[in-house]
């Protein structure tokens, strides 16, 4: 060590120290580099499986929902199918004749309201006022929302199913994907890319709502710009522009909460507006933009001609009716199938399909609707319609975008931090007149200091594991019996292999269980899994002394699905249903699921919830009680 100068750092440039020294440092360097790369790989693995957990649970939830809905459609005498298919309650809202002035007369805006006051026809000043207000977390008054929706519907009705655009005058067109109620992302896009205008056209490719907490504000902004620049702001319908999806994924709740009494009216009008959203956009006759994807039967001429507003009833329901009535492989030729069904299928496919690298067109198992389409399907469509590119959204992508099918298909996803802070970037496409795409990525952060990778992965991982543990707890009974099958001597322990098999057979999430094991279950000294330990730190919020555990668990697991059913029964969106309706609903639901339960059990349960003494229960309160509480969290908060 003697020759090396004591000056820190720079003077070690004469790397001609003694040979053994060099070998030492080289060895040390390799060791450190090796170890660092190991930790990096470990982080990447944790990040991947966390995203995998989020995605699997999300898709599994969507599938479950379909099961529940099929129950409600075909086994519920209480809920006639026709009721679901027609607009509830306030019928005059759907009336064509309703004008802006009628809303003005009917709804009063108090002087104390300091939010934006819109005047129609809208101008850029109105748009700026809205942006400013929403940045400051203000609400737009219900009257203006209704007027805006009314006008939007009027304008949308004039539009064809497929909008044709051109990149004339050297304009770049910006294409954005799913926003899912993330207002921060929309504001960031406008900040980076400028507001929509004649010189700055935009296409928003569906899924504006659900999951995030500002779905309403996003719609208001998009619709406002649509009214101001109808030739330069274009909207495509997504699978979440659908009232049943909204019941499940948060938009309905958001509107009801923000607008209370006026909420019902707004939701009603929205249903109509959604049904009038165009289905696709084509740029320069070469670039097709739609929300989900395509299938081997996608027919653009047919899509252009059909009456899209008729398909405004929930696309989800279409899914069910189609599922029940036809087998996909028997579909062709078109003439052999009823026109209506074919209509549904076409729309279903473009809103729900996902691209895959294998050739062919197969039913989309994870979504339960639409299909997986391969490069051959894309190539065939392109040939038929002389297309060059397909831009679609619908799928979460960690980098905000992904290119597939040999450059022909682009997925664009604009909701950053979709699952959790730090989970992914969002992106948008700038398309120039040569139709070469350029991608711009971004990520909103609520932290002023940017988290390093370690911290970000830590956040995502704990959030993902939390969701997973909740799912585990909600399936407690099933899991316990699955474990018991491997534990014939009732020792409380089984091999890791058996534990993993049991987990997958019950939860069906296709997750790397062995990798996750350490976070989910405790091990015995001889390397076996103490299987009941996966339930230790969790319990269900509601006191359950008098009530059957199985009942509580079921309520917990199907909480969100029950919410949808209750919402359908609750015609006037009051949040209350009668005890009798509740009892009947529950009985049918339970019997379809094959759950044994005693009447007294349910009665006791209902009694333990506060409800109006007039024989109605507030089902939101009731459902709120059945969420999984993480004991460790509770400890921390107390």
């Amino acid at each position, binding site marked *: 060590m003697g020759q090396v100068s004591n000056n820190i750092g720079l003077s070690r440039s004469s790397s001609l120290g003694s040979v053994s020294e060099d070998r030492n440092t080289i060895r040390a360097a*390799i060791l450190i580099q090796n170890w*660092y790369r*190991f*930790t990096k790989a470990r982080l990447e693995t944790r990040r991947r499986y966390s995203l995998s957990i989020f995605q699997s649970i999300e898709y599994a939830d969507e599938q479950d929902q379909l099961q529940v809905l099929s129950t409600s459609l075909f086994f519920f005498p209480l809920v006639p199918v026709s009721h679901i298919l027609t607009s509830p309650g306030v019928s005059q809202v759907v009336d064509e004749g309703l004008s802006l002035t009628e809303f003005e007369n009917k709804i009063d805006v108090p002087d104390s309201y300091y939010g934006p006051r819109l005047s129609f026809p809208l101008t850029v000043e109105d748009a700026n006022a809205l942006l400013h207000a929403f940045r400051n977390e203000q609400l737009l008054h219900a009257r203006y929302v209704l007027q805006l929706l009314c006008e939007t519907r009027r304008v949308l009705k004039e539009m064809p199913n497929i909008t044709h655009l051109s990149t004339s005058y050297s304009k770049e067109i910006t294409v954005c994907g799913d926003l899912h109620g993330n207002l921060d992302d929309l504001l960031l896009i406008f900040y980076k890319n400028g507001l929509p205008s004649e010189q700055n056209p935009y296409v928003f490719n569906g899924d504006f709502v659900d999951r995030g907490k500002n779905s309403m504000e996003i719609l208001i902004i998009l619709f406002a710009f649509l009214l101001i620049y109808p030739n330069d702001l274009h909207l495509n319908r997504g699978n979440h522009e659908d009232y049943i999806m909204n019941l499940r994924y948060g938009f309905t709740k958001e509107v009801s909460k923000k607008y209370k009494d006026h909420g019902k009216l707004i939701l009603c009008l929205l249903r109509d507006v959604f049904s009038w959203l165009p289905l696709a956009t084509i740029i320069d006759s070469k670039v097709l933009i739609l929300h989900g994807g395509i299938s081997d039967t996608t027919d653009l001429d047919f899509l252009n001609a059909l009456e899209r507003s008729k398909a405004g009833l929930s696309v989800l329901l279409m899914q069910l009716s189609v599922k029940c009535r036809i087998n996909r492989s028997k579909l062709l030729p078109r003439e052999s199938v009823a026109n209506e069904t074919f209509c549904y299928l076409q729309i279903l496919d473009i809103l729900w399909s996902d691209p895959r690298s294998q050739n062919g067109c197969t039913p989309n198992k994870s979504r339960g609707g639409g299909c997986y389409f391969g490069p051959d399907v894309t190539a065939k469509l392109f040939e038929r319609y002389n297309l060059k590119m397909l831009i679609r959204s619908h799928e979460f992508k960690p980098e905000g975008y992904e290119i597939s099918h040999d450059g022909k298909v682009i997925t664009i996803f604009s909701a950053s931090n979709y699952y959790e802070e730090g989970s992914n970037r969002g992106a948008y496409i700038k398309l120039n007149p040569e139709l070469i795409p350029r991608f711009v990525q971004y990520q909103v952060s609520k932290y002023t200091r940017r988290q390093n990778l370690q911290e970000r992965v830590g956040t995502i991982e704990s959030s993902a594991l939390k969701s997973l543990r909740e799912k585990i707890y909600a399936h407690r009974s099933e899991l316990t019996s699955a474990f018991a099958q491997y534990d014939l001597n009732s020792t409380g322990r089984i091999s*890791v292999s058996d534990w993993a098999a049991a987990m997958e057979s019950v939860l069906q999430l296709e997750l790397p269980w062995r990798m996750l094991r350490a976070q989910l279950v405790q091990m015995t000294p001889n390397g076996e899994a103490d299987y009941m330990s996966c339930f230790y730190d969790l319990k269900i919020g509601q006191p359950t002394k008098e009530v059957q555990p199985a009942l509580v668990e079921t309520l917990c697991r199907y909480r969100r699905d029950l919410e949808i059913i209750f919402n359908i029964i609750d015609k006037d969106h009051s949040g209350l249903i009668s005890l009798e309706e509740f009892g009947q609903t529950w009985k049918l639901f339970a019997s379809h699921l094959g759950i044994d339960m005693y009447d007294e059990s349910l009665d006791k349960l209902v009694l333990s919830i506060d409800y109006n003494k007039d024989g109605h229960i507030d089902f939101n309160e009731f459902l709120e009680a059945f969420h999984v509480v993480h004991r460790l969290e509770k400890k921390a908060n107390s």
Partner: protein
Amino acid sequence: MASRKDGAVAEIEKKIIEAFEVFDHECNKTVDVREIGSIVRSLGCFPTEAELHELLAKVEEEEPTGYINLEKFLPVMTKVLLDRSYQPIPEDVLLHAFEALDENKCGYITKEELIKYLTEEGEPFTEEEMEDMLSTALDPETNTVRYRDYISMMIVDET
């Protein structure tokens, strides 16, 4: 006894398949060749870059496609795990490595020194890797890496 050994091998194979699938986006039993390092490491191994290249040579197709098939990867990786190749680096060995770079034995390495060692010697870091390590390891006030603290922090995070 044969069945117990088979059981152990079967379990190892399942572990490998799981790790592989984490990186298999399209669920078609192939992964991008650039992910192999992550997969091998996620199974608890510490191969050097040179060792990784050797391994890759065994699992690549004759005409490299940029993708690795599970079919080829599984037997090779199973042998790696059974032979316990690419042993983990224990904490004390890691500490000695940092100490070897700390000439004055003062408990820290300066930013410049560390950059020089790690981007010029051994199996050099890319700029990205260096920046990333510094973002966690560097104490911005003194512009040094207090390696004992750094190691403790990283190890804790693992458990």
